[in-house]
């Protein structure tokens, strides 16, 4: 399943995180922009509100303001006074409805803070204390509901603190804070005036909403682009990061398919994957060695079995192909018997090795006397030695040992048989034993041709033969020393060989000495 791959999972997580981050970022940006926009609108509205409540500038000495309607002239709050403004109640007239109306009118007509073009967007409504609309700008919607006062009426004294008389303030004083509301696609700021009226400045949000939609669109597009780029980048990074893993798994697949000689190329062994590759490679190497050993063993074992089977098959086929004399039948049967004996010996050896390998039959811990054991073994091989007129010397003191007497006897007999086989005629075999630093040292020395140095490391391998020409004639299957080694290993001991060309070989078995 492709979606189960690490790369896909990495990509999915990467994508999810990216989407979450981008969404969070985009929403925040949108909200900030929206807030800014609203604040700007509110400031704008506020400015208009202030402008409506600002005292009128002093009139020119003569006449009217240009463009002032010729109709009813409201009383001008500040007249033509110059110099310091007296603190008189007249100033309060700027909150009077007519005054506001006048300014509203002026502003609509001639601009000022507002220019005429903005009248389409900005509108003004003034309510009286009883909720009746006193005035409204031409662009104002019909059904603007009167704001309802939530808090207590503003105290009159606060007016003293505002600084309208000295130019437009950057911010209104605390008491002058207008309230604002959003009504449909309108934003409206309003203030309750000291006389109980309510002045509202509003504007349509349509262009702002469109701008916000554009912003949202932009943010979405940018987010999508960043997401795509991020996913592509993530894919690339994941591919790069996973490439060594792919290489490792590809190699592992080839190895699993049977090619054990494959190795992972560990380009940078410093990295985590390099170390992993190193560990896997050494595992593969050991696996390969084990497999090779196993294959060699199987091949050798089958070879050893095939030859006697061939003998039996050809002998019987030849014998049965026509009528034979009883002598011929006897010869054929004898050949078959020899072959069968060889197979029997081989199967026994293989079984012994298999049991030792599997640890099926644990090594017995019994008390035996090494002296007796040595002499029993010598008696077993004495006929063989006599055939070749060999002398067997035994130098084994009476020694109580603990171990598997039968198997240790097998080791000694094997070594003695080897020493006889590979000896020269009229040579000698020497069996000695002594205790040394908590171990028994058993040596079997012969006076044969010695073992070539290149063969010594392989001597205890299964089916390894030094001289292949003599092996079969003497009915040996190449497992004797391997079995010796397996038995000695099972006892926790060691077996070694020293050899000198033309002088002879000495096998030394070291067994841990345990007294009864």
């Amino acid at each position, binding site marked *: 399943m492709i979606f189960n791959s690490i790369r896909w999972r990495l990509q999915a997580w990467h994508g999810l995180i990216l989407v979450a981050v981008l969404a969070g970022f985009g929403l925040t940006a949108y909200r900030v922009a929206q807030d800014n926009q609203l604040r700007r609108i509110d400031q704008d509205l506020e400015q208009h509100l202030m402008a409506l409540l600002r005292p009128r500038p002093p009139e020119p000495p003569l006449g009217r303001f240009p463009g002032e309607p010729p109709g009813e002239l409201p009383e001008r709050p500040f007249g033509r006074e110059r110099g310091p403004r007296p603190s008189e109640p007249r100033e309060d007239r700027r909150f009077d409805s007519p005054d506001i109306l006048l300014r509203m009118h002026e502003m609509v007509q001639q601009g000022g803070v507002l220019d005429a073009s903005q009248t389409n967007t900005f509108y003004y409504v003034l309510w009286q204390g009883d909720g009746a609309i006193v005035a409204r700008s031409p662009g104002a919607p019909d059904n603007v509901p009167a704001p309802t006062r939530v808090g207590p009426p503003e105290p009159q004294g606060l007016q003293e603190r505002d600084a309208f008389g000295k130019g437009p303030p950057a911010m209104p004083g605390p008491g002058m804070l207008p309230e604002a509301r959003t009504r449909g696609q309108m934003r409206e700021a309003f203030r309750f005036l000291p006389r109980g009226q309510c002045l509202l400045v509003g504007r349509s949000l349509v262009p702002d909403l469109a701008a916000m939609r554009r912003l949202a669109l932009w943010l979405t597009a940018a987010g999508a682009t960043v997401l795509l780029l991020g996913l592509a980048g993530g894919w690339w990074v994941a591919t790069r990061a996973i490439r060594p893993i792919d290489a490792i798994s590809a190699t592992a697949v080839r190895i699993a398919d049977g090619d054990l000689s494959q190795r992972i190329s560990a380009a940078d062994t410093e990295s985590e994957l390099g170390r992993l590759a190193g560990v896997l490679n050494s595992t593969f190497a050991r696996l390969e060695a084990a497999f090779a050993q196993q294959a060699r063993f199987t*091949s050798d074992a*089958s*070879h*050893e079995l*095939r*030859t006697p*089977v*061939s*003998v*039996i*098959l*050809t*002998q019987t*086929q*030849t*014998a049965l*192909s*026509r009528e034979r004399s009883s002598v011929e039948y006897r010869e*054929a049967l004898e*050949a078959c018997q*020899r*072959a069968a004996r060889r197979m029997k010996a081989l199967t026994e050896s293989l079984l012994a090795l298999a049991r030792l390998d599997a640890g099926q039959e644990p090594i017995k811990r019994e008390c035996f006397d090494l002296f007796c054991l040595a002499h029993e073994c010598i008696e077993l091989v004495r006929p063989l030695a006599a055939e070749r007129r060999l002398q067997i010397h035994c130098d084994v003191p009476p020694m109580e040992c603990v171990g598997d007497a039968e198997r240790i006897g097998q080791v000694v007999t094997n070594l003695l048989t080897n020493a006889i086989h590979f000896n020269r005629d009229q040579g000698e075999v020497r069996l000695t034993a002594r205790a040394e630093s908590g171990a028994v040292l058993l040596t079997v020395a012969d006076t044969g041709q010695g073992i070539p140095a290149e063969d010594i490391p392989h001597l205890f391998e299964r089916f390894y033969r030094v*001289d*292949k*020409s*003599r*092996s*079969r004639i003497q009915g040996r299957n190449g497992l004797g020393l391997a079995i010796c080694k397996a038995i000695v290993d099972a006892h926790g001991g060691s077996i070694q060989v020293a050899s000198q060309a033309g002088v002879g070989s000495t096998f030394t078995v070291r067994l841990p000495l345990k007294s009864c």
Partner: protein
Amino acid sequence: MRVLAVEDEPDLLGSLMKALREDGYAVDGAPDGEEGLYKAESYDYDAVVLDIMLPGIDGWEVLRRLRKTRKTPVLMLTARDAIRDRVRGLDSGADDYLVKPFELPELLARLRALIRRSASQAQPQLEIGDVMLDTTARKVSRHGQEVILTAREYTLLEFLALHRGELVTRTMLYDHLFDENDDTLSNLLDVHVSNLRKKLGHDFITTRRGLGYCIE
């Protein structure tokens, strides 16, 4: 037909030689690579059955050295059946390959095929005029009638038939029809040839006086 069997297992070599002899071959045996190589180089065998695992010089080496001088057909015997070994055997110049334990009839059939192929004869049946030789069944017929031949007569006829049109010298016949243990009398060949003429027609085998025989 004379073949050489090289095998280090005495019981196997013995039964192999016996079976081959009973199949009408003149058979020599060798228990190791050195003797096998010496014999294979000394005589012009029709085929060699060669074991690979041999003491001394192994089968690969025998084959390698033999191929320098002779192209005798070689059938390799091995107890290993790894494909690598088979490939190696065929690549080193072996003509066929048989894994132990083998069935004798298969060995004999492969040997017949090898000898036939080396004589550039693909068919197991040889037709010479009105005489028909079945090399598989080792039977001869003339005008559709079976002609009874002794084993020696048959091998002599088969050898001449496989070398049809060539001059076959008396030495060649001695080399190929008798093994090293045969102490044949020199006039025995003439007796066999005259018997064959009686059974298959006088003109079937022509004599090149002082040189040898020939089937046209």
